[in-house]
């Protein structure tokens, strides 16, 4: 990755603590257009917390976030969306009792000139984007509780893609999926990357990261172990970063 351009996102010295526990402690990560950065670490390493700060779900105690080189104030999910930051959560964050279109447009409903929610227009848009992402998707009228894991995933992804995400956060996007659906998500990531979207990919799966990511940032106990170019390291290097908190070529742990 050539780092001469301005990063899409630059999170500097982020800190947040919950009741005395430093969930994220002085972590800096950045992301360039058309790049996939993997965030790795054990459960509780602070990856999801870090990313929830970027998506507006949590507010950091200190630190700075720059989007396109300009300082951004992200206090809630609405602020994040205003910066074209979209998030696909591990839990998918769908309202099970609503249909696909209502979920896709949740918080950003299309309205008629009278200010009424325009369900038909939203369904029509949903059909269009689904035809692109998952042509097999047919259950437009059912609540999403009636959908399979992969179909729910495609609703969550469609939500991010539809609103022209420039910065996409994917929290364990393939955790609940079968092999075919995982393949679909991988292809989608490549496609989005080609469109110049920057992606933070949170994952447990080293193979996912090796295959999909350009760089990987590893966290342990709330601290950043280091950020490496994926092409320069092996699976084992990444594993030792995750488990031992040791950078490649180092004898003693950095953290």
């Amino acid at each position: 990755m050539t780092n001469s351009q301005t990063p899409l996102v630059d999170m500097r010295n982020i800190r947040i603590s919950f009741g005395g526990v430093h969930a994220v402690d002085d972590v800096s990560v950045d992301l360039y257009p058309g790049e996939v950065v993997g965030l790795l670490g054990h459960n509780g390493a602070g990856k999801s917390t870090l990313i929830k700060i970027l998506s507006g779900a949590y507010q950091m105690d200190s630190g700075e976030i720059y989007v396109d080189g300009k300082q951004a104030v992200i206090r809630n999910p609405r602020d994040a969306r205003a910066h074209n930051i979209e998030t696909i959560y591990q839990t998918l964050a769908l309202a099970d009792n609503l249909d696909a279109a209502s979920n896709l447009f949740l918080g950003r409903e299309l309205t008629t000139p009278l200010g009424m929610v325009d369900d038909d227009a939203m369904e029509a848009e949903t059909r269009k984007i689904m035809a692109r992402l998952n042509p097999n998707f047919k259950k437009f009228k059912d609540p999403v509780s009636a959908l399979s894991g992969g179909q729910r995933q495609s609703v969550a992804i469609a939500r991010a893609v539809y609103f022209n995400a420039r910065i996409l956060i994917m929290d364990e996007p393939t955790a609940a999926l079968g092999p075919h659906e995982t393949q679909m998500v991988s292809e989608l990531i490549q496609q989005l990357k080609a469109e110049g979207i920057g992606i933070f990919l949170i994952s447990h799966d080293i193979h996912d990261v090796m295959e999909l990511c350009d760089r990987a940032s590893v966290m342990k106990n709330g601290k950043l172990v280091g950020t490496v170019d994926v092409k320069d390291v092996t699976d084992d290097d990444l594993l030792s970063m995750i488990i031992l908190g040791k950078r490649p070529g180092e004898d003693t742990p950095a953290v």
Partner: protein
Amino acid sequence: MSDSTTTPTSTDTRQPAKSAVSRFLQATELDTRLIGMIGALALIWIGFHLYGQLVNGFGAFLTPRNLWNLSVQTASVGIMACGMVLVIITRHIDLSVGSLLGFCAVTMGVTQVWILPGLLGIGHPLIWIIAVIVGLITGTLVGALHGWLVAYRNIPAFIVTLGGLLVWRGAAFLIARGETISPVDETFKLLGGGPFGAIGATGSWIVGLIGCAAAIAMVFFGRRQRLRFGFALRPVWADVFIAGLSCSAIIGAVLLVNSYPWPKGIVKRYAAENNIIIPEGGLFISHGFAIPVLILVAVAIIMTIVMSRTRFGRYVYAIGGNPEAAALAGINTKLMTVKIFALMGFLAGLSAAVASARLGSATNALGTLDELYVIAAAVIGGTSLAGGVGTIYGAVLGALVMQSLQTGMVLIGFDAAIQQIVVGSVLVLAVYLDNLYRRAAK
């Protein structure tokens, strides 16, 4: 409430082998739950009527007089049930609505009986308007306070409103000093119904025709909207059937309320006051729709639009389905909670106006135990206590079912103890049937 669960035809719309009934249901897109509830209501009505006819020799239930009164008695609980649906959908509960109704009634009573006549003079035309506004504001503010405590102070709604149940009943007693506040303003009284609080035959026809026009327009615009986006259309016969069914129901209601005449005594007094000579065989003056019923219908229609056609309604369902997802989608769930409780309070205030107008006075005991009937109406109407599910029409029908049971048992001479046993059992049975229905529908 759906005895449709007992008929296999209504639940198998998705099975490949389709009976004529399920094809019909699919084409018309009629809600099987709605059909079930109307069926249950019809059973209750016919059952009470037949029981009266066979046992007491007189079927009193299916008479214009009883049905008209039933509609008026349903109004107060029905109005509040429309708000309770939102509260329950978002996984909260409001136990304070009965007490809040009493509190609002007393503030309105004090305003129009003790305060305003001294300032404006008795019978001033503004009195009832100011009184109602005071009541509505009181209800809204109290509701907003409850919502704020729930959302921003993280006190469970059960506790906040349980406290409210005691607080507002006590406050009503203090303000009323334990007295019955009467007589209320004459115009205010019309909100409660009665011969003068109804709109008469001509007015009812006008309302009915507007209703029919609206029903036809909705079917027409729905069809045009589907055409615009190229979605599958309902067959023309299904659209015509739905429009026809709605219009017949509305016209039937108009004919019903118009066939209930004013009592002879009131006709005589009215004739004397207006110098009308009563012809041979008496003068037939129709009640027409009662004003409280029109208020309920208006509330139900507005709330249905709010729930299905506005962002507010969409967010209510989203919060009920998954509060975390709603918050992550940028919905201010705390503020929504305040708004929902404020709306509940507003409707309790409106209900208070109807209830105290009907009584012709305001007492601090008004609305006692209403919270239970309101919650029961919403739940019988298919609102799920687990959140995310519920409809306004269901709650109104639920209120009608509850009131029908009570009225029916009074008419056939069951005493209060048996009434309580029956109403309580029906509540539990309704929720059980609803569970069965949901499982079958999956």
